[in-house]
């Protein structure tokens, strides 16, 4: 067992790597009533072409399968796993992202019964043609629900515009058509390949005794048999630097047009501290250029180009990275011009000062400290970082060491000729 104490944060993280390859982390939090426990596989919607466990050739599976598998994990021969969690007073859930599938519960009692339920249901798949067919109607409604959400359509539309080949451009849940092709056999194939303990992380945070929990998980895993760990072979197509589409538009039943500017990262082949530094440098740069204290924000807000819906974000994973900046706006053309002029100006006359960096550095350190109040944030963010060999608890020291040169390097990687796209959604009556 490793025990890592973070003095400034006053947190202690416990870690153990089990024989079957599973990484187990526990972070006790004094004063908390609940324990939040996640069990996550490094498997998301982008992992669509891979060598199945025991196989030799690459296969490509139907779009939306990681998410479909997540749904189907909850159904067992003797019923629905939610029933068991409810009986033991746990709120359970799961989510699938581009790169992860996470199963979780939160409870204020019966911690070990619930942990056992979590470990068992994720490690005992049960798929039949009948249960797979039944799920198609439910997921079709989920997809349809998202189809009506303009924010969602715009975000994924922007990603689709940016990437020509990388599977990040495919909807996480697939489409109503692609999920029709999914079979129980596919689910087993994906399960066997990606749900090996060596491809997973277990994280418990909150009201928990670390030694007890580590021991409990270890003993549980010893009672189960697993094949030897084997690295997962994934394949990704080559992705050019330029954005696949310069712009696209969509007409939906919205009250106001929506504009989003997307910009693509050139270099994403990194991991560990380099990646953390790049991510934080990009976040800080965007804060300086577009944050609520920026010149841009004041001008755009005063001129009515943006409203409360304005937001920006940066995402980086091995293989793909992008920033998205957007708002509801009555003047999409003017807003597009202003965002581009801010980016062009930073590109041509880089002028971010140490004073600006200091202020945003403080803001980001505070933001991180505040986030440590949230067990959900700690578990999810830690796991996300862990899969990219980063350490969540390096955030403060890396922020403390950031220089304006690092911001410039991050910006240069994010903003270059032909690496941008515009996605606009107009109210549908304007299409007539």
């Amino acid at each position: 067992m490793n025990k890592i104490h973070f003095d400034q944060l006053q947190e202690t993280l416990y870690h153990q790597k089990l024989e079957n390859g599973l990484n187990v982390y526990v972070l006790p939090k004094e004063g908390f009533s609940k324990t939040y426990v996640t069990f996550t596989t490094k498997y998301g919607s982008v992992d669509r072409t891979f060598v199945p466990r025991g196989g030799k050739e690459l296969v490509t599976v139907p779009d939306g399968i990681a998410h479909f598998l997540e749904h189907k994990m909850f159904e067992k021969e003797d019923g629905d796993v939610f029933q068991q969690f409810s009986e033991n007073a746990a709120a359970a859930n799961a989510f699938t992202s581009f790169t992860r599938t996470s199963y979780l519960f939160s409870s204020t009692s019966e911690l070990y019964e619930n942990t056992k339920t979590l470990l068992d249901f994720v490690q005992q798949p049960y798929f039949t043609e009948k249960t797979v067919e039944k799920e198609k109607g439910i997921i079709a409604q989920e997809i349809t629900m998202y189809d009506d959400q303009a924010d969602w359509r715009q975000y994924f539309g922007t990603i689709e515009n940016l990437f020509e080949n990388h599977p990040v451009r495919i909807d996480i849940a697939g489409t109503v058509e692609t999920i029709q092709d999914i079979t129980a056999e596919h689910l087993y194939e994906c399960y066997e390949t990606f749900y090996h303990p060596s491809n997973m992380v277990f994280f418990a945070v909150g009201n928990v005794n670390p030694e007890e929990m580590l021991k409990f998980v270890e003993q549980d895993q010893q009672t189960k048999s697993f094949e030897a760990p084997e690295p997962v072979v994934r394949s990704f197509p080559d992705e050019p630097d330029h954005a696949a589409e310069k712009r696209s538009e969509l007409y939906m039943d919205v009250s106001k047009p929506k504009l989003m500017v997307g910009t693509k990262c050139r270099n994403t082949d990194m991991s560990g501290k380099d990646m953390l530094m790049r991510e934080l440098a990009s976040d800080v740069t965007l804060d300086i250029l577009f944050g609520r204290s920026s010149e841009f924000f004041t001008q755009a807000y005063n001129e009515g180009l943006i409203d409360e819906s304005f937001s920006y974000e940066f995402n980086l994973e091995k293989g793909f990275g992008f920033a998205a900046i957007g708002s509801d706006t009555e003047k999409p053309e003017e807003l597009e011009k202003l965002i581009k002029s801010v980016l062009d100006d930073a590109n041509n006359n880089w002028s971010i000062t140490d004073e600006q960096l200091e202020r945003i550095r403080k803001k980001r350190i505070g933001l991180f400290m505040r986030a440590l109040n949230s067990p959900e944030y700690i578990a999810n963010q830690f796991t996300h970082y862990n899969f990219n060999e980063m350490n969540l608890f390096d955030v403060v020291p890396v922020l403390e060491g950031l220089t304006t040169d690092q911001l410039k390097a991050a910006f240069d990687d994010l903003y270059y000729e032909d690496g941008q796209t515009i996605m606009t959604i107009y109210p549908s009556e304007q299409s007539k």
Partner: protein
Amino acid sequence: MFHKSELQSGVNLYTRQTAQFKTVSVAIKFTAPLTEENAAARTVLANVLEDSSANYPTRTKLRQALEELYGAVYYTDTSKRGNEHIFTIYAESVNEEYLRNPEVPVFEQLLTLVTESLFKPNLKDGVFDEAVVEREKQTVIDRIGSIYNDKTRYANKRMLELIRSGKPASLSASGTEKAVSAITKESLKATYDKMLNEDTIDIYILGDVDTDQLTGRAQTVFPFTKGTRKSVPVTASTTSEEVPTAKHIREKQDMKQGKLNMAFSTPVGFRHPDYPKMQMLNGVLGGFAHSKLFINVREKESLAYYCSSSYSSHYGLLYIMSGIDAEQEEKTAALIDQQIEALRNGDISDLEIRQTLALLSNSIRSSFDSAKGQIEIYDQYKLLDENFSSDKLIEKWERVTKEDIQEMAKLLTKEITYLLSGREAMVHE
């Protein structure tokens, strides 16, 4: 849980010293009667106060000051509860203990910034700046309009307007576009004066700070003028309308999914002794993944991704919301009706009761794991019991029987079935 001190009649300070969080939080809540005009004016005021202050006369200066305080949070918000309109200022900063060499006492400075924004706002010639007021009016109008983009929320709002037109249950906490448009810089100053002088006020401070010391100087930190502050009288907002037959309304928009919603009225509201029984009913019916609606509409029949119920106790209403293929409306509606009938017939298992009790208990206990959760839950339940604790509430749920739930179900009156769905063959160029 919170320690209460009365600063004057109608102004109370609630403090809680705890090391659970890495932050210190302060919330100031102003309560006034809920009307369309009040809601609109106070929401615009919330935005205007958050924009700037006499000391930080522009949005940029104020935001930069917050960034310097290690990204301290400061925002305003409005909400409603029964026939009350609540204006909330919320602020939070990192406890200095976790910062390496902070040059300033962070929470103290934040508290000063917040109280300055409240007591020394950014005025010109005794009124608010016209440009700021006009811009924030537009922001609030945009916010009111944006509900249209979220079809799930929009369908529920429409349904409420159809059954509780002009009543607190269907009023938006942001008011209406018409009421916002009527606001002037002078009227907003009057709204501000009235709020400070006539509202009842609850102040919360929570975190690892010297709460005794803060309480000792609270009169100076929060110098509210002595005035007549009357709390909003509780009206019997839960009495249901005369409904001979339930309405059945279908509306269309340019969308793909059908939103099938229902509303039932109940004479049992938040202050009613049977309130815990209704909470249990809602849990058995549709609050969770073990509930009847989830199991029967989603899991057994694959009709929906979501089908759930929620109990709006301050308005004596129970809603059901689902997202379906509109062609399955009749089938889904019948299935939902069957679940209500099952409750009325006492078709409720011990397991369902056990699971619901377990998850309600988990939910209330978990809500205390965030600073905001502690403030909001206490602020609500203190209306029933100043010495509220989650254990007391859980004890009440534990006493609820199958027969109680059955009895509650018999008191439900269906008022409306509402379907919002797509137009056929929408074609765009």
